[in-house]
């Protein structure tokens, strides 16, 4: 009765055991090792790829940082250059202004000088002429010729008194009076230049 029970194993047991051993052998020897190798290779590949990706990301970040730094520097340089240009322009402008002012002053003082010279010249002319007139008048009044050479000092003193200048020194004969009188007037114009 025992042998007919479906809970009791029979000779099939041996066949089933052999069947399972075949499966175990095939899987253990021919299937698992290459599969495990493939899985390990893939893990290695994934690991390497992840590492490479990390590296790429890091280098990209570094490059970005460099780029930003370069941009920042360029911007700063540009700012400096603009500032410098602005300062240079300012300098040029103020220089030009100063030069113009100087030129203006020079022209004005030169003109003033010219005017002074012309005035002095006119005064000298006038005084020389006045001296002649005075001599003429004196000759006529005292009836004899006054020697211009002899009374030169006297005449000059008179002229000096008229022009308001200091008493000029004794002169050599024949030297034009205007040439001698230009000296003090030019010295007087000096501070104006």
């Amino acid at each position: 009765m025992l042998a007919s029970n479906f809970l009791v194993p029979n000779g099939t047991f041996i066949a089933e055991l052999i069947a399972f051993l075949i499966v175990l052998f095939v899987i253990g020897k021919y299937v698992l090792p290459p599969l495990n190798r493939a899985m390990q290779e893939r893990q290695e590949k994934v690991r390497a790829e992840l590492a490479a990706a990390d590296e790429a990301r890091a280098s990209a970040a570094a490059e970005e940082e460099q780029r930003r730094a370069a941009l920042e520097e360029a911007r700063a340089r540009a700012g400096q250059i603009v500032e410098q240009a602005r300062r240079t322009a300012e300098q040029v402008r103020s220089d030009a202004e100063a030069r113009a002012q100087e030129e203006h002053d020079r022209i004005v003082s030169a003109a003033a000088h010219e005017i002074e010279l012309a005035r002095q010249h006119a005064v000298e002319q006038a005084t020389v002429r006045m001296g002649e007139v005075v001599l003429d008048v004196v000759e006529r009044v005292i009836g004899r010729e006054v020697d211009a050479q002899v009374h030169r000092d006297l005449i000059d003193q008179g002229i000096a008194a008229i022009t308001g200048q200091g008493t000029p020194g004794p002169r050599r004969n024949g030297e034009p009076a205007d040439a001698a009188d230009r000296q003090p007037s030019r010295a007087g114009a000096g501070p104006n230049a």
Partner: protein
Amino acid sequence: MGPWFGSPLLALVPSVGEHVVRKVAGLSIDLDTVWATGAAVVITCALGLLVRRQLTSGVPGKLQLAWETGIQLVTRQIEGSIGPRGLAIVPLAVALFVFILIANLFEFVGIGSRYEWLGAPTGDINLPLAMAVFVILLVHMASIRERGIGGYVKHYLLQPFPKFLFPLNLFINFVEELSKPLTLALRLFGNLLSGTLMLSVIAFLGAWKLGSAPVGDVLVVPFNAIWKAFDLFIAVVQAFIFSLLTILYFDTAMSTEH
């Protein structure tokens, strides 16, 4: 047409664990089980050798992915319980899982006849018992290798009770060790046998008629579909439980702390 066709409801009792038995060299052999087991062996090995041919470390195909998922499932389980030294039993656990799963799935083509032309071989006590006995033998060998023969014997004498109760310890441990292969085998066998029985019960429903209306024949279709969907779940769960328990038995046998 099966023998149930046209019979009144449950007029025939479904066959329970009946097999086509032949005497070979004085041993009774269940020919249908041997044939189905052979088919399962061929399919399992073919799937293994097929995946081996198209193996890639790049993007795996569906078959390779299925194998890898199974292997990773088993490997993670072993590493989590036994640790790296248990990796030697990965092939055993994988072979158990895949082979049992494929054998279980044979139930999917069953129609509930007296003898299935390709019944699940795990529904015959011989296959689950053969695997369970083989596994438990390996477990005991691993235990002896891990603890030494002295440690192996002491392990059964000195726990769970104190030393002076060693006969009791021996008895308890004997029952426990005997129950391991039996429960391992009977759990798988019982689940698959009951699945086959459900199929034949549903098939017998086909004989149910109300007058001349074939109510049973109509009901058989949805019932079969529902039951086979559930069977699919059972097939996976039972295959997984068998290999998981194998791993846990190895874990208990190879652990040295007590």
